[in-house]
């Protein structure tokens, strides 16, 4: 069998079976985000991601439904009358096909707007964090930056616009006559509504993609310029000794200067995490933009082919639809999983619980099992106030304090607290 024989089968399996399964996984991730207890999932970024996900899943399912009832299993045999406004004698495929096409266009534009908003939240998180970090008087709180810039009201307005604008733009679609092309079996295939309405719909969609390009690409360039200038400032300001910290700030590793991070220096630790966090945000924004850009290019070529009535190009573009659509629809859930440890913990918590049941053999290992079952324990431990941890340390012996200091950076600095010196010198 040649590639040309296998390709249609692979395409058929993917489009009819695999894609709906992907949708189920995507929907599961969205449900975990909605039900997740972490405050991170309440941020504007996740709200936009959920809204975009809903639009993406709906769009894939609408296209799948249309494929099933209009291509795989011919359901609508009466193709003659194609108006939305029915009379008593006809059951018209046009009503279903037009509504399906309308919702699909609506979702596609909503996805473009949703992705622009998602990338915007990443951009603001990166750039405003920079500005805060340059100003030493203001505290660095990159996790909460979303809440300050994207307040509840602003998020609601954006979400309404995300769905409202496409709804208003495409409101005419179901009411125009449908267009059906001939097929060898005589059944015909739905081509959309009659021109120029369909051309207008494609023009709106292309505008949506250009809006996405026009807003996200300058944001990305601005971010890279911004981060470069901040790093230069940090190096210049800190001088040769502080250069290690500047390296830490950018997430880099400066051999020989690691002792700087041994000192209980909260700022330098925040900078390590800022560098890492910034890279993750940048990675998310770049990959999401690229994947959607591929679909944008595909849709723009389709639009041009429609304008110049280039049939071969149209056929080729329609044949390639699956690839950019898959990249665009499923890049986001993959990116969410790759970039967010909290989401991975949330989504895969069932699996980790299953693994932990094999661990409890002795008294000590049962304790380990308990801690592994409770995935949020480390998070709670990190949220325990310093005063509580010092109180805990104050009941320990010198040797225990030394061991506790070896657990992690925070414990190391806390066990060296001045108030515990009496234990180090007197007890144990």
């Amino acid at each position: 069998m040649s590639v040309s024989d296998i390709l249609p089968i692979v395409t058929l399996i993917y489009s009819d079976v695999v894609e709906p399964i992907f949708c189920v996984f995507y929907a599961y991730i969205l449900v975990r985000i909605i039900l997740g207890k972490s405050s991170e999932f309440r941020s504007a970024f996740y709200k936009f991601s959920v809204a975009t996900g809903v639009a993406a899943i709906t769009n894939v399912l609408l296209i799948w439904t249309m494929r099933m009832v209009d291509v795989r299993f011919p359901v609508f045999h009466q193709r003659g009358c194609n108006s939305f406004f029915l009379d008593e004698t006809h059951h018209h495929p046009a009503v279903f096909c037009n509504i399906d096409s309308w919702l699909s266009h609506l979702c596609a534009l909503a996805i473009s707007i949703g992705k622009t908003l998602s990338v915007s939240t990443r951009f603001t998180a990166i750039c405003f964090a920079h500005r805060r970090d340059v100003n030493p008087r203001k505290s660095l709180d990159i996790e909460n930056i979303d809440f300050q810039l994207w307040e509840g009201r602003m998020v609601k307005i954006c979400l309404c616009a995300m769905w409202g604008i496409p709804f208003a733009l495409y409101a005419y679609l179901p009411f125009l006559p449908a267009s059906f092309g001939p097929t060898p079996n005589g059944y015909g295939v739905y081509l959309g509504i009659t021109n120029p309405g369909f051309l207008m719909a494609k023009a709106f969609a292309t505008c949506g993609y250009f809006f996405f390009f026009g807003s996200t690409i300058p944001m990305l360039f601005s971010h890279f310029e911004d981060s470069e200038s901040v790093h230069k400032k940090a190096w210049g300001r800190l001088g040769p000794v502080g250069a290690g910290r500047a390296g830490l700030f950018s997430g880099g590793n400066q051999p020989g200067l690691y002792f700087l991070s041994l000192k209980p220096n909260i700022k330098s630790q925040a900078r390590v995490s800022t560098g890492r966090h910034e890279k993750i945000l940048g990675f998310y924004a770049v990959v999401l933009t690229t994947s959607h850009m591929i679909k944008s290019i595909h849709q723009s070529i389709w639009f041009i082919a429609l304008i110049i009535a280039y049939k071969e190009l149209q056929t080729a573009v329609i044949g390639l639809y699956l690839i950019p659509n898959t990249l665009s629809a499923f890049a986001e859930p993959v990116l969410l999983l790759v970039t967010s440890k909290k989401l991975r913990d949330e989504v895969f918590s069932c699996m980790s619980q299953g693994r932990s049941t094999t661990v409890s053999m002795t008294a000590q290992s049962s304790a380990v099992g308990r801690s592994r079952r409770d995935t949020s324990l480390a998070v709670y431990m990190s949220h325990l106030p310093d005063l509580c941890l010092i109180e805990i340390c104050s009941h320990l012996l010198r040797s225990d304090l030394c061991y506790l200091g070896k657990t992690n950076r925070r414990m190391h600095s806390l066990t060296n607290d001045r108030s515990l010196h009496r234990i180090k010198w007197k007890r144990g």
Partner: protein
Amino acid sequence: MVLITLVSSDEQNFPVERELLKQSGTIETLIVNMNLDDEDTDAAAMPIPLPNVKGDVLEKVIQWMEHHKGDPVKEGDNEDNNAEIVVPQWDDDFFKPAMYGSKHLELTVAASYLDIKNLLTLSCKAISNTFKGKTGPQIREEWGVPNEFTPEEEEAIRKENEWSE
């Protein structure tokens, strides 16, 4: 008997005896500031919101306060000798089911937030007991704390603590 209503972060109401709440510095200050002790004030109509404490944790705190009603607050008390950390039997049984779980840590944070000194001390003592005689990696494993140190840093800390071992 005067009852004061506490409202947890998940909006559960807990009517609690006024006398019990004297153990909590935070609530005591609120009661004084809100004049809830005045005869003219309708204490029942003025619930105290505790946005940082969840309902199930607040329930445990109230249970603990009921058992320790009338206990004197031990300021800076440290009766532990070198060998063991003393936690009374009742408190040990109270903390044990939640030990190694986020609930115990939530209870400790609540005790700190509500400024209940005896509960905070005992809760911290119970956690200290789990650290006793354990090495850094053992504590990390039991409490699920990730290792942030590079091998070089670990070596530096080991040298730093050489004198005490």
